[in-house]
């Protein structure tokens, strides 16, 4: 039982911190309501509209780019956990992977895939 105390403390700290962050805006923020701010917000769309409306191809692009980097994190977790077992070879394999990923990132950056305009 005793060894889980850390988790309990962590749980309380997390709860307190999130409540604090949730509560602070009610106390200290300045509130100026305008129609844009109080309308329902759903990924930049009007929530009550024709579902077949066109929308920007950039959404797809961002989603696809996000998936790639998301998967990279999925690879990084097991790598980080086993790093002391796989040694330098494992370390440099992941560095190579990250390098290739970075090259992809440089490509999309230079091609302007990240410019939202």
């Amino acid at each position, binding site marked *: 039982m005793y060894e889980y105390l850390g988790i309990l403390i962590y749980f309380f700290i997390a709860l307190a911190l999130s409540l604090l962050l949730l509560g602070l805006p009610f106390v200290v923020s300045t509130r100026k309501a305008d129609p844009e701010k109080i309308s329902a917000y759903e990924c930049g769309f009007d929530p009550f509209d024709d579902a077949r409306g066109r929308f920007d191809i950039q959404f797809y692009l961002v989603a696809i780019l996000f998936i790639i980097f998301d998967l990279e994190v999925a690879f990084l977790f097991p790598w980080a956990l086993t790093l002391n077992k796989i040694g*330098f070879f494992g370390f440099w394999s992941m560095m190579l992977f990250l390098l*290739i990923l970075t090259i992809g990132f440089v490509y999309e950056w230079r*091609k302007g895939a990240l410019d939202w305009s």
Partner: protein
Amino acid sequence: MYLEQSFHKQISFSSFLFENDFLALFPEIFLVSTGIFLLVYGVITSTSKSLNYPLLSYNISWYAIMALLYTSLLIYNSPINNAVLLYNTLVIDDFTQFVKITCLLSSACCISMSLQYIQTQGDNAFETLILILFAVSSMLFLTSSADFISLYLAIELQSLSFYVLAALKRNSEFATEAGLKYFLLGAFSSGLLIFGCSLIYGYTGVLSFSECAKIFAAGVVPFDGIQAVTTESALVSLGMVFILAGFLFKIAAAPFHMWSPDVYQGAPTPITAFFVITPKIALFAVFLRVFLQSFYDLFPIWQTLVIFASLASMLVGALAALSQSQIKRLMAFSSINHVGYLLAGFACASIEGIQALSIYLIVYIFMNIAVFSILLCNMRHTHNNGLPRIKYITDLAFLAKTNPLLAFTFSIAMFSMAGIPPLAGFYSKAYIFFAALGSNLGVLAVVGVCTSVVSCFYYLRLIRIMYFSTPKTWCSTARVPRTNALALAISLFFLIFCMAYPAPLHLITHKIAIALCV
């Protein structure tokens, strides 16, 4: 103490990997890293404002050709010729070496034939060349793959590059249609393939081709204590049939050929040339390995299916091509027809069969290089509404008068495809038929000869159009580019003189066939 030991073990392990496996894989590593380097170079230079946004396609094409040639030199001079690498995932031997060099040289030829197209057509997407480089490197991995995972990964990398290449002309409806069709059907066939692999894995528990072979070979004899895997099991045959279907899809053999004419027609001509010429040999190489090594004990089942696919491809290729008016569609059906002959060699599953198949593939590559380096020449029109390139077969009508030598070369290529005696095409076809007769597959030889006669009709029709028809509008080729002329000269001389001195080709194919059959 323990840590120190494991550290030493790791050191020796990685130094072993560096000394052997990476040394043996150096050509592939070189090609992939060149592709990545060219990608960075291209994207940084072509978007640079201070360099005034240079157009890089032509420049990168030459780099790509150089990379392919250097890689083939590296493979030719490789210090390690026979090895199983990276924990049984890749294998290199004489067969893979030959296939890889052929892949590299033929794709270098494809790029050098397209140089003028790349220069004059306003696409200026240097990514095309990078994608071709990646596709070729995936073919190298495909050729040497030795288990189902590396096979599937290499096929996927190759197919993904191909889908993008097919849809390269983004603003053309045909190209978009081609890309979409290719993507849907290609993804479907990849699905079939991996489903087959998963059935095999689920039943046997192994992924490597050689382990599979051991299990199937021992299958009929029950081990004591171990549940025996029998080759009669329906699941294993089912998995194998799925893998075979995926393979037939990829090489566009007859029951699964429907995508290929549309894709070949819609894709830009250099890409069509690349699709026709290069990937067949890599796919045949790896599936020969799968079926002759892993599934050799299921031979009766897959032989029937391959014979059926072979007959169907020969018939479809010969009959459907009769009614085509577009030259690229015609070449697509002609390639289906050739795949039928190749599958006839496959169905023999003997050393002679594989040898005949390899010879046929080499001759096929040379014939298509000759045809496509003519189709990729720019045209000069006397009227305005024409296209800059040969599109319909009637567009050839002027050729015999405006450029007789080009017409002669085209005729030689056509005669060779039809299998007229003194040319290389006859040699390869005869070899296939003898191999088929040698393995008691007389039906393949007979149908092959008959369809070859039928296909003579449309090959000779092209020659008739060139020499005897009087066109209403005239056009001529612009000056044939240097590289195309060189490709034409080499392939023409090969087609004519192959029969005079076939010994090197004959010997090397015999050697690689033995390397495959062990």
